[in-house]
């Protein structure tokens, strides 16, 4: 036990032999007793001395505590997710009607295709299916022993790559086709011409067929002559 604890609890006479020895190493019996006396007297004095608390003493602290509790309760307010907040939000009918009217007026007043051309044109690729062949048969009246010579001509079968046609998504009012479309038309000119009625040729103007016909006729005549 510490010396200060001994001083608070025991007179010198009450100490055990070992404790007395320890105390005597530090001070004399008289000094110990004098200090013990001062401590005991002080404690006696304090016991008799009572101070009355002001009844309203903790008011400030209590008020602060209440404020703190309110603050804590405010902090505890549950945070509602935005979608729930949105679901809880009710739109007044008049606002809804006004918005609908505004949208209607806007749709009526503004043309649909007005706007700046889209910088990223949409690529359109058409697939053309050949549905049927039209074969034109020309009846030629020839003698019965006429030998018909059939001439085969190899058709140029090089694959023609049809460039994709770029559709113009912007306004077409009063504007020309973009260069991409014109270029595409140039590449696939055969196809274009075939489809173009104005640029097509009638059969009697076809030089190839005329040649064939002449050859057939001449051969016929030659054959007729030899035979």
């Amino acid at each position, binding site marked *: 036990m*510490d010396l*200060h604890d001994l*001083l*608070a609890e025991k007179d010198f006479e009450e100490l055990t032999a070992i404790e007395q020895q320890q105390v005597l190493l530090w001070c004399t019996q008289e*000094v110990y007793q*004098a*200090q013990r*006396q*001062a*401590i*005991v*007297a*002080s*404690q*006696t*004095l*304090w016991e008799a*001395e*009572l*101070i009355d*608390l*002001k009844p309203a*003493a*903790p*008011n*400030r*602290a*209590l008020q*602060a*505590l*209440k404020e*703190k*509790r309110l603050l*804590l*309760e405010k902090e505890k307010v549950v945070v509602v997710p935005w979608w729930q907040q949105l679901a809880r939000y009710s739109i007044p009918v008049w606002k809804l009607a006004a918005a609908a009217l505004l949208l209607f007026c806007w749709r009526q007043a503004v043309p649909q295709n007005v706007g700046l051309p889209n910088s990223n044109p949409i690529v359109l690729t058409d697939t053309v299916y050949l549905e049927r062949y039209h074969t034109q048969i020309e009846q030629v009246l020839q003698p019965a022993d006429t030998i018909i010579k059939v001439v085969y001509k190899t058709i140029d079968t090089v694959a023609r790559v049809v460039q994709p046609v770029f559709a113009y998504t912007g306004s077409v009012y009063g504007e020309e086709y973009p260069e991409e479309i014109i270029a595409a038309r140039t590449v696939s000119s055969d196809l274009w011409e075939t489809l173009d009625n104005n640029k097509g040729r009638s059969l009697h103007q076809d030089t190839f067929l005329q040649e064939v016909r002449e050859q057939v006729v001449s051969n016929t005549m030659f054959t007729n002559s030899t035979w």
Partner: protein
Amino acid sequence: MKKINFSSDEQLMQLVQRGSEPAFNVLYERYSQRLLFFLYKMLHQDEAKAQDLLQDVFLKVVEAPEKFDVQQPFKTWVFTVAANCCRNYFRAQKTARLANEKIIQPKSIEPVIPIQERVFEEQLQVALEHLSPVYKEVFLLKYKEGLRLKEIATVLDCPLGTVKSRLHGATKKLAEQLAPYKAYFNH
């Protein structure tokens, strides 16, 4: 409420941290008188000032309860707050000197032995008042509040050796001053 009354100081303080008013009231009931006495003695028996500082102490308990570590004893912490309040007050008032001037002039400690019954108590009162604040707070915390030396060291934020030294100094000084009146001590 009954449950709260039987709770430890530390448990009550945990409740105060959550804003519990009843818990605070119980703590106030347990410690207000002891703290008031400590402050009263430290402030040279200025009761009004002691009452004010007591409010400050509990205000600090309420305003910053999170500063209290629930693993530590509440008693130590609350007396630390009280001791700091006293120091701040002394610092603000420059009381080390001022307060000494204010205190009641001690009766002569000359070895002229008055023939009154309570002479020893009066002289003890005077001697206690004459103790310097550092001696007085150690002496009060040890022999009035019954704190252990380690706890006092925590309260005063000083080494254990310093506490022992101050306590020894305070006891020795008191004993020396009361020595002439030993005959009047009735134990």
